[in-house]
């Protein structure tokens, strides 16, 4: 942290984020209005109209919250099945030069659920599992649609807040189509080409076999004529033989087009296993900078959209401020922990000034790894440019905690805003209790029904994370997946379900969720956790949107709690941290916190 250059990079990041927030927010106002105008109209309008005609959508026809929810659920269900079947039968589909087999039912389910819910948890490694067709069609379609759907829901909730005595909250189809066509596709095109200029691949060639300069020897299990491993006399230990390796098989495929929307849509599902740490997916520090900027760009702009729509820009900025404060603290803690490094390894001779470089890339170094880890878990992105599993205990605590706040620190596209608005309503409710009057939020009375919906969301999510983690902890299948022993092993499980329910998708990636013996427990439970995390959040939120829309506005009075300024920011941050901390503190104490002290004592597992 002594390097001024890193501070300068941090300042530039914040500056760039501020710079895009307002223009992109204003653009969103037009995109999320069925009659909005953008400079892309001449090109995109005809495609938009054609889409409505082909699909039988009447763009002038707004939906109530139930209609909106039905449309959303139908669209998600179709998308889920679409992806599931492509993955199952990718061996019968085109663009599979490596001849990769179809996926098992539980892995296909896990992956389809994962991409439909904008989680992008990956139980598989992309380069050895997915055909080009699966990457490009089965997965990329959700990179667009799950992002568009998220933004649509946020817009529906904001409309619910902004409107009074209204029966409708917008048209799901129009929102989804317009966000995709006017926002996601145009930005992705430019972004993808920029990424190629930095070194990301985009081709349809089979993998390239390179003859390396220095052959080297590895040990592989000996196999008999039938391909079965040969065992030693004890009948258990496989016999190992030397094998000379003189080729490196280089991954190819249509990567850039997928990576652009993977970041912009806060999806995070990597083309290859190492995700944005892989030199093909994130070749330069410059590509890294724009990738992390693209994660926060839309979530940040949505706070401006909120302010504009409710005609209280200061409220929008207050929400932004609360997110920003939590973001900065996360970065500083994670950065400090990683820069301090691991005393155990320093004892072995690693230069103390280098920090913890295990699982990090040289071109990014400590700061950009800590920054990326914080951003990707603040937002429900889940892409990684370093391996969180190998972070120091406190460095790894930050991403875990970020996810457990409910992904509201800027959060996923749309999901961050609607998640944060849940906390806003809770904060207003708490403030109302403190002064003893009916809480109001932007002129809407917050009543028992609203607070019940809010609490339903928060409790279901927490119970799902903790329940599944508890189950895995005491099960053979749960422990079989672990890569680390001791408290770190528990952290791997807690992280997995937090990530799934929070729809984040990053992992303490040592965890094997799709074991070679075909045990389906991890894949299945994580898949269910992701679906709960997405849909049991969205449905109550749309109900809330519908209920808020139907309310009358009451004029502000002297006693109205102001949802702007520092007091509100402090209250909002307090609500987020307390709800997150109180629910997950015992879990965190058993994982990263205790590990921190054990590391200090030099204990190894």
């Amino acid at each position: 942290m002594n390097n001024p250059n890193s501070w300068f990079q941090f300042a530039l990041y914040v500056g760039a984020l501020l710079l895009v927030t307002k223009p992109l927010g204003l653009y969103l106002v037009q995109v999320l209005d069925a009659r909005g105008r953008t400079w892309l109209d001449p090109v995109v309008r005809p495609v938009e109209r054609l889409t409505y005609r082909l699909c039988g959508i009447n763009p002038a026809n707004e939906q109530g919250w139930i209609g909106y929810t039905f449309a959303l659920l139908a669209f998600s269900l179709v998308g889920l099945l679409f992806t599931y079947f492509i993955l199952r039968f990718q061996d019968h589909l085109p663009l599979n030069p490596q001849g990769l087999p179809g996926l098992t039912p539980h892995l296909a389910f896990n992956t389809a659920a994962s991409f439909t819910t904008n989680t992008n948890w990956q139980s598989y490694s992309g380069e050895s599992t997915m055909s080009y067709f699966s990457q490009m069609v089965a997965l990329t379609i959700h990179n667009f649609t799950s992002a568009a759907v998220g933004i649509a829901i946020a817009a529906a909730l904001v409309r619910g807040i902004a409107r009074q005595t209204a029966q409708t909250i917008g048209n799901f189809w129009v929102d989804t189509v317009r966000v995709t066509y006017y926002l996601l596709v145009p930005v992705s095109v430019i972004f993808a080409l920029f990424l190629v200029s930095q070194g990301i691949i985009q081709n349809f060639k089979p993998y390239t076999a390179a003859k390396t300069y220095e052959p080297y020897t590895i040990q592989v299990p000996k196999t008999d004529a039938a391909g079965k491993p040969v065992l030693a006399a004890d009948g258990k230990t496989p016999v190992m033989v030397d094998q000379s390796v003189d080729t490196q098989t280089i991954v190819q495929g249509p990567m850039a087009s997928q990576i652009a929307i993977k970041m912009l849509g806060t999806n995070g599902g990597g083309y290859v296993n190492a995700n944005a740490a892989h030199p093909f997916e994130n070749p330069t520090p410059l590509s890294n900078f724009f990738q992390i900027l693209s994660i926060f760009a839309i979530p940040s702009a949505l706070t401006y959209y909120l302010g504009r729509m409710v005609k209280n820009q200061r409220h929008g900025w207050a929400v932004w401020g609360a997110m920003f404060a939590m973001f900065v603290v996360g970065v500083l803690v994670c950065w400090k922990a990683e820069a301090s490094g691991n005393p155990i390894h320093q004892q072995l001779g690693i230069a103390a000034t280098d920090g913890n470089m295990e699982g990090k890339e040289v071109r990014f170094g400590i700061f950009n790894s800590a920054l990326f880890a914080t951003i990707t878990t603040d937002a429900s992105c889940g892409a990684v440019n370093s391996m969180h599993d190998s972070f120091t205990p406190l460095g790894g605590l930050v991403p875990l905690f970020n996810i457990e706040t409910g992904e509201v620190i800027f959060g996923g596209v749309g999901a961050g805003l609607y998640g944060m608005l849940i906390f806003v309503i809770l904060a207003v409710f708490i403030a109302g209790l403190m002064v003893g009057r009916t809480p109001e939020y932007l002129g809407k009375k917050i009543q028992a029904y609203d607070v019940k919906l809010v609490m339903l969301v928060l409790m279901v999510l927490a119970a799902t994370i903790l329940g599944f983690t508890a189950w895995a902890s005491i099960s053979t299948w749960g422990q079989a997946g672990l890569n680390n022993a001791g408290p770190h092993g528990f952290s791997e499980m807690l992280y997995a379900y937090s990530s799934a329910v929070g729809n984040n998708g990053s992992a303490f990636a040592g965890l094997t969720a799709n074991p070679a013996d075909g045990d389906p427990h991890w894949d299945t439970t994580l898949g269910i956790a992701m679906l709960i995390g997405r849909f049991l959040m969205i449905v109550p939120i749309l109900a809330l949107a519908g209920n808020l829309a139907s309310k009358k506005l009451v004029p502000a009075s002297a006693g109205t709690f102001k949802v702007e300024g520092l007091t509100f920011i402090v209250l909002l941050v307090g609500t987020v941290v307390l709800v997150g901390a109180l629910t997950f503190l015992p879990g965190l104490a058993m994982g990263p916190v205790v590990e921190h002290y054990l590391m200090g004592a030099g204990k190894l597992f």
Partner: protein
Amino acid sequence: MKTFLAEIKTSVVLTLLFAVLLCGVYPLAIWAGAQALFADKANGSLVTDQAGAVRGSLLLAQSFTSDKYFQPRPSAAGTGYDATSSGGTNLGPTSQKLSDSIKAAVTTYRTANGLAADAPVPADAVTSSASGLDPHISVANAGLQSARVAKARNLPLPQVQALVTQTARDRDWGIFGEPSVNVLQLNLALDRLAAAP
């Protein structure tokens, strides 16, 4: 229920339409643009020899073990530098296994490069990268390996050091990321030096 079925129909048509536009037209457009503008990069920044055979990618680490070459970081990709199996060790800070492998790597590194038994070793030299394919090492790491390489090649040390300085890449725009040295690029430059009359 009737509305739900109607929405299913809309969903199916929209999904198929999106599949064509977002998963067909869009990637193909990027492919066309990428191949026209940045063909070398779009195809993997491949390194070919004079015979035209592909020898690796400038972006991907490959194994170098002999003294006459600079050596990349340890790799946890597959059995090591396996570009179809990218990834890190994912071992945590209190892992015995990780501690053991770092301990061994530190000893090997000190012996190979003639360092004192208590000399601090650059972190990147003895830890596995996130991808297992990190093509770079730190400038300090390259500096410490220079003497070994110079000796193995019978080159004057300043010449090797100069090569390291030439190959080293500053932060992007002087700001972003960390300075780094691309191992494959450096080793190729060394081989060219040897081949030159």
